[in-house]
């Protein structure tokens, strides 16, 4: 082990060396997401900005695709991070895992370059295979889809085989099964049909069953590990909670899929089924808050890594508000008829993705940097702690400001475009031109710039935190009884 406070791969186990590679790319793509989000946001206020060069559609596509990929990279990294620790044995196919990382990264770079430089193709199947699929979130061309599936399968093999060789814990069991589902669901989005109802029906299998089922359970596993790691919470408690969360999440989230089947041609019974089950979805999110807050309180917030713990607690609340409360607000069909596809949706989408997933991955970034620097002290009062505190504050304030601004614009839009206007071309612009809507867009940008400042500070902090620390990390004992 090298000196405290100095970044050295010697401080990491094999899986963790791979993890920090994923984390690095992940952070860079987070930056890209923020940048293209700003460009798209500016175009709302100034439509001529980059018009014909980088149109809104291009910026938005890069914005949300960068998000999906950096979150996936963050998840994969996080799992590699805990893999050897949790299983008690080295990663089985580390060389393969490394190769996989480089191929995956290269593929992402090629896809993004094609998005930016070629942008659109002729209306033929080959455009979908080579340029982009034009289906929100899963725009990646078909060749890349196949690559993604192969990469995820290799990753899955590594995880499953490593756990099988070593310790197969409760967390491991949930994680492995969850990854099978996560990879399998992607296949539902990988085929072409002229029928847009059919298309969107299966598209939602990927999107909804990812974010409201499999990804939620994945962060549940990460949360479980994080709580053990930062505070030494007893495994039995954590794993019991994890099972409770899985039961509640899948029990509500799987049939909650129906909240996307109200208006796309699917039968009327989904109004009832989707409304009912998705209305139950906040329950597991409440359970997660109770769990995290109870444990943190029980341990008097004494932790080995304060920034990580702060982001984990933030995850519990962010998930609850962004997904649970903001999701619930528009999930009943009686309301969704007027809010469907308005800025309401954008408001919810931002807070949910940030609250549930960004937060958790940032917590892992902090866990990683701590160990990378030789398991350095990261309690409160660490040297230069203003940076992580300020970046956290700016990211949260920026996100909440954006969410609120979008919500106000969304209210106005659902009223003027939908309820009064009847959702046609004229009604759409009546709402978009209204001062209340425009003000919302201005405030979204103020929030956006705040968020971007938070990101810059975050990146800086991750590069420097713990650098001048000479104290070793606080040792948190597992609860003894």
């Amino acid at each position: 082990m090298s000196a405290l406070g100095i970044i050295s791969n010697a401080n990491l186990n094999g899986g963790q060396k791979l993890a920090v590679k994923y984390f690095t790319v992940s952070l860079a793509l987070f930056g890209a997401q923020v940048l293209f989000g700003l460009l798209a946001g500016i175009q709302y206020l100034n439509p001529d900005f980059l018009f014909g060069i980088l149109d809104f559609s291009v910026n938005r596509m890069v914005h949300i695709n960068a998000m999906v990929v950096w979150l996936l990279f963050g998840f994969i990294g996080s799992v590699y991070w805990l893999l050897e620790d949790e299983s008690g044995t080295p990663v089985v196919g580390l060389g393969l895992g490394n190769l996989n990382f480089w191929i995956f990264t290269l593929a992402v770079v090629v896809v993004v370059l094609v998005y930016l430089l070629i942008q659109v193709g002729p209306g033929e199947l080959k455009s979908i295979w080579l340029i982009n699929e034009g289906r929100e979130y899963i725009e990646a061309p078909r060749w890349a889809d196949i690559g993604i599936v192969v990469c995820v399968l290799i990753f899955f093999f590594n995880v499953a085989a490593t756990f099988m060789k070593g310790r197969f814990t409760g967390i491991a069991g949930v994680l492995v099964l969850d990854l099978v589902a996560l990879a399998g669901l992607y296949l539902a989005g990988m085929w072409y049909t002229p029928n847009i109802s059919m298309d969107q029906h299966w598209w939602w299998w990927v999107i909804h069953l990812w974010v409201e089922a499999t990804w939620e359970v994945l962060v549940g596993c990460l949360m479980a590990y994080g709580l053990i790691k930062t505070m030494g919470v007893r495994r039995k408690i954590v794993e019991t909670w994890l099972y409770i969360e899985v039961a509640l999440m899948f029990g509500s989230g799987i049939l909650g899929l129906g909240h996307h089947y109200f208006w796309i041609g699917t039968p009327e019974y989904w109004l009832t089924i989707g409304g009912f089950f998705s209305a139950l979805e906040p329950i597991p999110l409440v359970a997660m808050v109770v769990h995290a807050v109870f444990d943190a309180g029980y341990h008097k917030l004494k932790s080995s890594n304060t920034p990580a713990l702060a982001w984990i607690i933030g995850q519990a609340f962010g998930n609850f508000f962004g997904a649970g409360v903001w999701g619930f607000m528009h999930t009943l069909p009686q309301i969704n008829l007027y809010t469907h596809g308005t800025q309401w949706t954008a408001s919810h989408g931002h807070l949910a993705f940030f609250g549930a997933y960004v937060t958790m991955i940032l917590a892992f970034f902090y866990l990683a940097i701590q160990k990378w620097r030789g398991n350095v002290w990261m309690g409160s009062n660490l040297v230069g702690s203003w940076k992580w505190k300020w970046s956290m504050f700016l990211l949260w304030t920026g996100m909440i400001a954006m969410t609120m601004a979008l919500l106000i614009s969304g209210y106005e839009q659902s009223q003027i475009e939908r309820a009064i206007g009847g959702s046609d071309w004229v009604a759409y612009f009546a709402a978009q031109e209204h001062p209340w809507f425009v003000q919302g867009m201005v405030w979204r940008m103020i929030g956006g710039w705040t968020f971007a400042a938070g990101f810059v500070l975050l990146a800086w902090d991750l590069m420097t935190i713990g650098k001048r620390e000479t104290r070793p990390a606080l040792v948190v004992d597992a609860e003894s009884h």
Partner: protein
Amino acid sequence: MSQTAWWASESLWRKSAIWVTGVSFIFLIFLTFDTVDHITAGSKSGRVKAYSVINNRIDYVFDAKRNMQVPVIGPVEPLFGKVLTEEEAEALVSKGKLTTQSKNCMNCHTLLGNGSYYAPDLTKSWLDQSWGSKETREKSMVEFLMDPTDKLHNSLGRKMPNLGITEEEAKATVAFLKWMSSIDTNGFPANFKPLDQSDAPVATVTAEPAPKASAAPAQQ
């Protein structure tokens, strides 16, 4: 550590998790089979129409029994004056769908309410009053899609870019939009006031009539 209460037992919750997930998933599979049946083009329930519905007038009318607007298939009113067979219609709509995907419409517009919020929803765009009249609509739509930048309909200056859409692609896209407007969306978008198509004379069929497409598509 005292004895764990039965309701806090790890194995109870592990079993619950497995059972709840399994049962939910089985329900979902069951419902999926039924739903796919309903949303196959030309399905018996008529929620998603056969592609040849583009040979007919499509309207969006309030239905008192369902208490919502529903698509209503009217008399033969072929697109671009040509009645198509089901296969021809499918090929055309498919070309249009491919155009919407490869030009990335969904990252500016919503379709069936899903996508992006930068531009109007296209679910009922075929029926939009801004196209003027039903006689000029097809032509206006093709012209708009091929060169939208100078046809501004708002004071914000928010324009649709020229996406290099060819005439063939534009016509196919219009076919796709017409077909999409016939999907039964449970009354979404609510309160939509469609273009008046009622009193206009039925367009004359110019091309050779196709064998199977004389009347409304098989379902109602």
